């Protein structure tokens, strides 16, 4: 029970994160400065948000490749909108979320109601989004207002904005998973048939999981623009594989039913921290991919082993 609870609540990945961070800080004491913590979190935030979004879909047993396309698209849109100041930033956020939700709704409709396999359907929407992104922004560049580039990557009352955002997302999940929608999402991931017999509207729940995902991808793209002060029509491409790696690392089971958004946030943060750490101890950046790959396999094996132990105990 305890192992499983730890894995489910993201406590495990939290511990892993802290251990790596402690070693990192020991190797490189400057890592503890407010500036570098802020930088670390600014770097992590887009991947954390993307992983949070993907988790909604994976928890219900689905799959969403459109993460790369949606981030590219929204990132490009953010970079062509020339609204300044705080109000401008809010306006852009609104537009970004609208676009993300729209893409999510299309994905959700095609998968939940037209019953097309999620991998194939979201592959198509990803490509379409990438195309639209190219129409909006031909080449990397564009305009990101000073407010976004500085205030959104800065601090409020000494707390980095990125930490605040991540915390808010974790809080949102904390609340959401206790609502009916959240419970039903987890239920259909565990057993879609039993959920249907329990009276859950399975198609509708799946549909909304894609909407949540779209909204979070948009948020990721928005903060990516703020962090890089620029836009790119291919901004999302690196996210395609890393997002799933982060979710896997967080311990969310592919196939659904087990895991959570908070764990994915931490999984993503760990992935980014790991890169910094490997760099700091002098592992050639060439080999970080190798470590990431191995960690993904180990993470899945580990969460599988936990599940195996739990199942075994239930049978006897």
């Amino acid at each position, binding site marked *: 029970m305890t192992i499983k609870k730890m894995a489910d609540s993201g406590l495990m990945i939290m511990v892993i994160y802290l251990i790596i961070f402690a070693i990192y800080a020991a190797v490189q004491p400057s890592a503890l400065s407010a500036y570098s913590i802020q930088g670390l979190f600014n770097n992590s935030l887009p991947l954390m948000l993307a992983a949070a979004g993907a988790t909604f879909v994976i928890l219900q047993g689905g*799959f969403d490749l459109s993460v790369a396309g949606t981030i590219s698209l929204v990132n490009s849109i953010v970079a062509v909108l020339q609204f300044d100041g705080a109000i401008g930033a809010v306006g852009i956020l609104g537009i970004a979320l609208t676009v993300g939700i729209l893409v999510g709704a299309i994905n959700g409709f*095609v998968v939940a109601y*037209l*019953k*097309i*396999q999620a*991998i*194939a*359907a979201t*592959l*198509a*929407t*990803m*490509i*379409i*989004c*990438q*195309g*639209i*992104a*190219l*129409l*909006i922004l*031909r080449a990397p560049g564009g305009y990101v207002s000073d407010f976004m580039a500085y205030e959104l990557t800065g601090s409020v009352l000494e707390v980095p904005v990125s930490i605040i955002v991540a915390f808010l997302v974790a809080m949102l999940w904390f609340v959401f998973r206790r609502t009916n929608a959240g419970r039903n999402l987890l239920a259909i991931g565990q057993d879609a048939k039993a959920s249907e017999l329990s009276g859950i509207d399975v198609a509708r729940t799946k549909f909304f999981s894609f909407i949540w995902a779209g909204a979070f991808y948009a948020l990721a793209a928005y903060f990516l623009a703020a962090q890089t002060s620029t836009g790119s*029509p291919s901004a999302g491409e690196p996210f395609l*594989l890393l997002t*799933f*790696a982060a979710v*896997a690392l967080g311990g969310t089971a*592919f*196939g659904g039913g087990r895991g959570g958004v908070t764990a994915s946030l931490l999984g993503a943060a760990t992935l980014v921290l790991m890169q910094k750490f490997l760099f700091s101890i002098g592992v*050639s950046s*060439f*080999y*970080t*991919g*190798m*470590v*990431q*790959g*191995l960690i*993904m*396999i180990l993470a*899945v*094996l580990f969460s*599988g082993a936990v599940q195996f132990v739990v199942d075994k105990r239930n049978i006897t």
Partner: protein
Amino acid sequence: MNPFYSVTDKQDTRQAQRLNSTTIAVLTIYGLVVLMIFGSRLVSPSLGGISQLMNVLYLSSFLVICAFGQGLVILVRGLDLSVASMITLGGVLSTTFMQGTNEGLYFIIPGILLISALVGVISGLGVTHLSIPPFIMTMAMGLIVYSVCLGFTEGTPRGFPAPMLNAFMQNKVLGVALPILLMLVFILIFTILQSYSAFGRKLNAVGNNPDAANIAGIAVKRMTISAYAISAACSALAGVLLAAYANGATLRMGDDYLLPSIAAVVVGGSSILGGRGSFLGTVGGALLLTTLSSMLSALGVGQGWKTILEGIVILVALIMLREQIFTGLQSMLKKPN
């Protein structure tokens, strides 16, 4: 022959004329390819000739080869996300070992195929014996292989392919480029392998219904692993050819083939869930995607619209291929009788 009259027989007779839905899909795709190539003459007189056809065939040969492997993995209910890295591996290994000479060419190419097949075996073992989801396993293997390539070459692959390979990519026989002939030979072999050999029959059975395949006495895990091994070897071969074509390897040379390899399989009428698909359909899918992209470029359509159209083609193919729609169409056609 049947001594007992059966209600069952009466029900099935009515379906006797039913056309296989996959056949319809494959024919439609080839029809579209032909239509697009020759129809494009109407838009621009410089297009639609034999030379454009040859060009499309030449360019699609790389995709056709890696899509075969991808198709086998999808057939056994998996997905191979290591295609891009395996192409890079093939390219990097070939230029590194060949170093611009023909020496040892006959050992190097089989050697590369063997190494890559071993990587595929590792992916397959992870999927079958450790129950790691296929896309995680192949994605992780892809990351690892890519990182090894990156570390091994320190960021810039050196060396050149063997001159003989370069010549192979450029020479023509009877006006047909050798890679096209090679592709035709491969299509023949692969089609036989996938659809007319015991191996293909068993893979089809595994993808169709793994539990039933197990009961029928098929070594399900071994078959699945071999699909991953073949896929890895195919991608590496595509990498060798690409490196010869471009006269050198780059680390990102495989990136343009990962998603199209999946798309070609899906557009070609295979089910992404496995168990249904023909290689000829996949070839059609690869030709269609390559034709579309080269035609749109020739017409001066921007990259954006090009990509959007490609996505829409995939989406439409998916919606069209759904079983229900076919049965729906069939019942609509049947009603007048």
